[in-house]
C-alpha cells in the first residue's frame, strides 16, 4: 500500500510502540465506537479524578493510522481536565502525528468519538454535567 509511504515517522513510531494499550482497571468512563466508514472499532477507558483524566487506555481494531491516532489521543488527554480534553478534535490528533494521508483522515475520527463517548459515559455514571 503506497499509503504507508505517506505515514509520517511519528505515525509509524506510535504504530510500532503504541502508548497506553489496554483497559484501565478502575475506569469510571468507557467509550466503544465503531467507524461506520470502514468498520473499525476503538475502545477507550478513562479514570477521572477531580475532573482530571488521571489514567487512560485504548484498544483498537483498525489500520495503522487508527492505532497511531488512538495511541496519540491517550497521550494528549492524560493529565488534562475534562474541559481541555473535550477540545481535542480528530484534526488536532492528526496534526500531533505530523499529519495523516488524506484517505486516512476518517480513522482519526474514531479517536475523537471514542474520547467523547468515554467522557459522556463518565458524566452519565457520576451525574456530572
Amino acid at each position, binding site marked *: 500500500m503506497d499509503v504507508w509511504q505517506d505515514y509520517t515517522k511519528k505515525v509509524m513510531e506510535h504504530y510500532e510502540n503504541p502508548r497506553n494499550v489496554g483497559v484501565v482497571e478502575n475506569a469510571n468512563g468507557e467509550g466503544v465506537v465503531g467507524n461506520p466508514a470502514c468498520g473499525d*472499532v476503538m475502545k477507550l477507558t478513562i479514570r477521572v479524578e477531580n475532573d482530571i483524566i488521571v489514567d487512560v487506555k485504548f484498544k483498537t481494531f483498525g489500520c495503522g493510522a487508527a492505532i497511531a491516532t488512538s495511541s496519540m489521543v491517550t497521550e494528549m488527554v492524560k493529565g488534562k481536565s475534562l474541559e481541555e480534553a473535550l477540545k481535542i478534535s480528530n484534526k488536532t490528533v492528526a496534526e500531533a502525528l505530523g499529519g495523516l494521508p488524506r484517505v486516512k483522515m476518517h480513522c482519526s475520527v474514531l479517536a475523537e468519538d471514542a474520547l467523547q463517548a468515554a467522557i459522556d459515559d463518565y458524566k452519565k455514571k457520576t451525574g456530572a454535567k
Partner: protein
Amino acid sequence: MKPIYMDHHATTPLDPEVLSAMMPYLKTAFGNPSSTTHDFGREARQAVETARQQLADWLGAADSDEIIFTSGATESDNLALKGIAYRSPDEKNHIITLAIEHKAILDTAKYLQKQGYEISYVKIDSHGIIDLDDLRRQIKKNTALISVQAANSEIGTMQPIAEIGAIAHEHGIPFHSDAVQALGKLDINVQRDKIDMLSISGHKFYGPKGIGALYVRKDLRLAPLIHGGGHERGMRSGTLNVPAIVGLAKAAEICERDREKENARLLQLRQKLRQGIESQIEHVQLNGHPEKRLPNNLNFSFAYVEGESLMLACRDVALSSGSACTSTSLQSSYVLRAIGVPDFLAHCSIRFGLGKSNTAEQIDIVLDLLRKHVPRLREMSPLYDLAKAGVDIEQLSWKDHDHDIHE
C-alpha cells in the same frame, strides 16, 4: 530484511529469459509487421506470427488466427463482452456471469446493463464455486454469452470450466473465460474445454506488462472496440507491439515447460504455509475452497486483527488484504462478501500469492512474523475482548455519528 514478494496474483516479475527473447525487437528489429513490402517489416511479421502460433498451440486452438493481441486482460475482457454484445442481434441481449469475476468483467457488464443489456449472476457456493444447475436455469432464449473465470484472483477458487463449456454448447451459447490467473498453472485447452473466447495477460505469468490476448474461435465475430487499420482480422486495430508479443509467447513457452515441476513446488510451499498458520495461530479461517484452488493461493482471515495493520506489521513481505482499510472505497473485498464471508472477517483477510521467487525459508520468515504480530495485534483488539466475553461480533453495528471529518 530483504523484501519478500508474495503478491503474485497482482503481477509477476519479468523472466530474464523472456527479456532476452524480447531484446532484439527492442533494439534492432524495429519493423512494422504490417509493412510486408520490405525485410524490416517481414522480419517483424515473422516474429509475430511465430508467437501467435506458439500461443495457439499452448491454448489448444485450431488456428493461429484465433489469437487476437490486446493490451492486456482488461481489454480482452472488454472486447469479449462488448464485442459480442454490440454485434449480437438485438434480441440476444442477455449475458450470464459470476459476482466474483474480475472488475474488468463486472464493470463492463454493468456498463452494458446501463445500455439496456440484461445481466444475470449465477449462484456460487461458500467456496465460490459455480452452481451448475443454477447456470442451466439462468440460460434463456436471448442469452448471448456466458462468461466465467477459470480461477479467482483473491481466493484462488477454480471453476469447472469444461462442464460450463459443455452446458454453454448444449444451448449454442458462446462461452468466454477470463483465464488470467489460471494460465500457466492449470491445463487449459480451448477446444477440449469448449471455450469460445479466453482472456490472457502476459504479466501474470512472468511476461511483460501491457500485452495480452483474446482467443476468439474462428467462426465467432466480434465488434471491435478500437477501429483503425483493420489489424487482427479487424477486431483490434493498432500497430502490433512486437517485442511484447514475442515476450508473451516466450513466457508461455517457459510456463508450459516448467508447469508440472513448478506446480508441485508451489503446492509444497503452500502446504507448509497453510499448515504453519493453522497449527500455530488461533482463530484463523481459510477463505475459498480447501482443495479446488490455484496451487499458489492462500487466503486467510486472522480474526480480530485488521488486515492492513497486519500487513503493516509484516511490511517487508508484499501481501494483499481484502480489508476495507486497504481500499479507497472503504469497502471490504467484494469477492469475500459474495461468498458470504462476514464483513468483520473480510476485514481480517490476507492473501498470499506464491510464485517462482518464493522459498521454504521465506515461508518460515512469514510464519515467524505472523506468530509474532497476530497475537500482539489481537491483544490490542477490542473485538478480541468482546469475542472472549461472548459477544457475537457479526451482530455489532455502528451508528453513523454523522460527523464531519476535519481535514
